[in-house]
C-alpha cells in the first residue's frame, strides 16, 4: 500500500494504491482520467502512453510508485475538445482519427518526441511512432498531423 503524490496536468493529486499498481490504473480508476487507454497491459502497443518529465511513458507497465512527486501529463493536459492544443488541432485539421482508440498514444508519443526534435525527417517521425500500433490504418494521416504541427508551430 502506498500513498503517491502526483501532479497530473498541473493539478496536485494524491492516490492510495498498491505497491504494484501500474500508473494506468491510478490515472483511470483512481483519478477517472480517460485519456490513457488499456490496449495490452504489456507495453506493446502504446495506447497507455503519458508524458512524465518530457519522456513518453507506457503507463500500463510502470508502477505508480515510480512517479512519486512527479508531474504527469495526459492527453487531457494538452487541451480539451472546446479548446484543443496545437498538436490536437493538427490531428483535427488532418482528420487523423478513425476509431480513435490508439490516438492517445499517438499524440502523447508525438508530443514528447516533438519537444525534443524540432525538425525531424519523415523517417525519424515514423521511427518515433513505430512502437505505437494502429489497427484502423490511420498512419498516413497521423504522420500528416505531426508534420502539420511542425509546419504551423
Amino acid at each position, binding site marked *: 500500500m502506498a500513498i503517491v503524490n502526483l501532479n497530473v496536468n498541473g493539478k496536485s493529486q494524491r492516490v492510495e*494504491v498498491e505497491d504494484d499498481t501500474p500508473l494506468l490504473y491510478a490515472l483511470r480508476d483512481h483519478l477517472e482520467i480517460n485519456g490513457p487507454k488499456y490496449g*495490452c497491459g504489456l507495453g506493446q502497443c502504446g495506447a497507455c502512453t503519458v508524458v512524465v518529465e518530457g519522456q513518453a511513458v507506457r503507463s500500463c507497465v510502470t508502477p505508480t510508485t515510480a512517479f512519486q512527486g512527479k508531474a504527469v501529463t495526459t492527453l*487531457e493536459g494538452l487541451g480539451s475538445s472546446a479548446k484543443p492544443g496545437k498538436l490536437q488541432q493538427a490531428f483535427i485539421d488532418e*482528420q487523423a482519427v*478513425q476509431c*480513435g482508440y490508439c490516438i492517445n498514444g499517438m499524440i502523447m508519443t508525438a508530443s514528447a518526441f516533438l519537444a525534443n526534435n524540432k525538425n525531424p525527417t519523415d523517417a525519424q517521425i*515514423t521511427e518515433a511512432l513505430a512502437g505505437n500500433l494502429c489497427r484502423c*490504418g490511420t498512419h*498516413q494521416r497521423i504522420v500528416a498531423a505531426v508534420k502539420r504541427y511542425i509546419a504551423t508551430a
Partner: protein
Amino acid sequence: MNALTRRDFLKASGAGLLVVSFSMKITEASANYGLMPPKSVAKDQLDSWLTIDRTGKITVFVGKVDLGTGTKTALSQIAAEELYVPFERIDMIMGDTATTPDQWLTGAAITLSQGGSELRIAAANARTALLTRAAEQLKVPLTELSIKDGMISATSKPNQTLSYGELIGEGFQIKVDPKAKVKPHTEYTLVGKSIQRVDIPDKVSGEHPFVHDLRLPGMLHARVIRPLDMGATIVSVDDSAAKQIKGYVQTVRKDNFLAVVCKDEWSAVKAANAVKVTWSAGRALPAQDQIFNYWRQLPIAKTDITQNVGNVDAALSAGVKRVKATYNFAVQTHASTGPSCAVADFRDGKMTLWSASQATHSMQEEIANITKLPKDSIRLVYLDGSGCYGRNGHEDATADAALIAQMIGKPVRVQWTRQDETALAPKSPPRSMDFEASFDAQGNLTGWNSDFYIALNHIAAFKPLDFPLLASADTGNPRPGNWVGFLFQNSAAPYVLPNIKVTTKHIDQTIFRASHLRSPGRIENSFANESFMDELAAAANADPAEFRMKHLSDPRALDVIKAVLKASNWQTRPGPNPASVQGEIAKGRGISYVRYNNAITYVATVAEVEVNRTTGQIKVTRVCVAHDCGQIVNPDGVVNQVEGGVIQTVSRTLMEEVKWNGSTVTSVDWASYPILQFPDVPKVETVLIDRPGQPVWGAGEQTPTTVPAAIANAVFDAIGVRLRTIPFTPASVKVAMAQAPKVG
C-alpha cells in the same frame, strides 16, 4: 453532487448517455442513469426516427452505429440535408435498442446505402409533415413555402416565419411513407461535402465516451478466465490465492463460465492471474502447416453453382493452353487495439448493457437466450469500442457482463485482456480456391472454372441467433452455428467471358470459432480472382490492365481502371518488369479491380513493391486507389476509409496468420500476432470518382478486397514469382522463389 456544466449536460442529453458524463458521480437514486426513456422504435412510425423539441433541436435515432468509421457524421449530413437545417442542428443517437429503430447490424457495406436511405426517407417525411402543418397555419398553399435553416416562410407572407420547434406539437404521429419525395441531388448543400467528423475533437482530447471509460456507481470489475486450449473445460478451480487479493469480492462460476469480481480493475487483473484452474485437454486441431489440405478434405455440406455461362468443360477440353492455380488465405483475426469491454446492470428484472456491438438490436435476442430474460427486459446502449472490422470480442464481452450482472445483482464491467481479444475473439475461417482457364488457338480466353472451398454460413439471414457466444457455450448451450458472412460473394468471375463456371463448396466447420472479418468472402475471393486474371494476362503476354479492360464492358469499371492507371503513372507492358531482372531489390507494380459483390462500388488498385531477393521481405512502397461508390456523401470520409483499408490490408497480406500448436492458440498478443508498423506503411493515394445522382454505395469494405492481389501481382512483376498463399511472409516468399520456374 457537483453542478453539471452546460456543456456536460448538452453532451450527455444529446448523446443519450449517462448524465455522469464520465467525470462525476451520481447517486444510486438516479437508477435510470440519465438514459433517455424508452420510446417508439417501430420503423414504420416517423416518431421512431426523429424528435424535435420546442427550441428546434433535432435528435435523430438510427439503429446503425459508427464503429469509428465516420458514418455518424455522414448520416447526420443526410438527415440535415433532407430537413433543410444546418449540419450542427442534428444530434444523433445510435444503436440504443430502447430508442432507435432496428436497421439490422452495421456492416456489409450498407450503412449509408441501406441505413442512409431509410434515414433520408424518414427525414423527408418529417420535412413534408412540417411543411404541411405550416401551410395550414399560414393558410397558404404548400407551393408557396420554402425552408431556410429550419425556418419556414411563405412568399405571400414573408414576415411570418415558423420554426420547426413551433410546428412540432406532440410529435409527428404519422407513419413513414416510403415514397416520400426526397431532395434532388442537384440542390445538395451538405451531402457531398467533406464536413469534419463530429467525433474527432473528443477523440483527440480524451473526452470521447468509449465503452471502456464508462463508470457506474457501485460498479465492480470482472475478468473472465478462459483457456487457450480450444474446447478445454474446467476440471477444478482453486481461487484461494485470488481471495487474498485486496479488492477481491467474489468468484462467479456457472458450468464452464468462470470469472473473478473485484472492486477495482487492477485487483481484477491480479485476482484473475491468481486463480488456479485445471483444464481438460482441448480438442486436437489440424497441424498448422497442413491447414489448407485439411480444409479441402472436410465433408462438403452444400455445393452451389454461383455462376454458369456457356459450357466451361467443353472450353477447357478444347483449350490450346490451360492455366491452373490454387490460392489459399490464412486464418486471421480482427486484432482490435482495444480489447473488448462491456458494462452491465441488472436490477428489478431489467438488464441494461452498454456495448460496442455492431448488432445491438439482434444482441437482445442473443442475451435473452443466455440469461433466460424476456427480450423486452434487455436494453443495449451502444457506446464506441475500438475498431472491430466485423464481429470481434465485443459481443462476447457483452454477454459475459450480462451473465455476471445477473448472477451477482450488481453493476459490473467486464474487460477482456489482450490475450482474450487476440486469441479468443472469433476468427475468419480458412479459404482454399482452385482455378483453371483455357485459351484457344487465337489466344482468346475461352473458359474460366473456379472452385471455392468456403465455410458454411449457418445463420439464417439477418438474425445471428445461433452465433456461438462464449458465454453461451460455457453455460451449457454451445450453439454450433457460424456467422461468417456470405462468403460466396465476389466468387463470380468479374469479367465477360464466353464460358464460366463458379462453384462454391460449403464446409460445415470453421476450425476455430469464426465470424465475419472485414470484407468477408470478398477479400479472399478477390485475392484469387484478381491474382488469376493476372496470371492469365501473363500467359497471354499482355499488359495486365489492358487484358482486364479487354474483358470488361461496364463503363464504370473501365473508368475506375483508367483512373488508377493515370494516378499511378502506369507503364503499359506485360509483366514481369524487365528492369527488375537483376539486383537484390526488385521493383514491381500490380493492378487489381473489384466490383464489390459484383453489384455496387467499383475499386481499382495499383500497388508498387520492392522485394528483397535475399531476405524475401516485401515492402509496399505506394498504393494508388481509384474508387467509385456512386454519390459520395463525405469525400474526406471516403478517403479516410480507403487509406485505412489499404494500410490494414497490407498488414494482413504481408504478415497476418493466426498460429496454433496442438490444441492451443499461440497468437495471443502483439508480439505473436504482429501488425504493420509506421515505418512499413506505404504512401496511399486516392482518386475519388463522384457520381452525383447515382445511388450511394459503401466505402469501407471495398478497398481491402483489392489489396492482396494488387500486392501479389506487383511481386510477380518484381521477381517473376507467384505468391498464392496469404500471408506473404519473407519465409514464404523465399520458398516461392526457390520453387518457382524461371520466367522468361
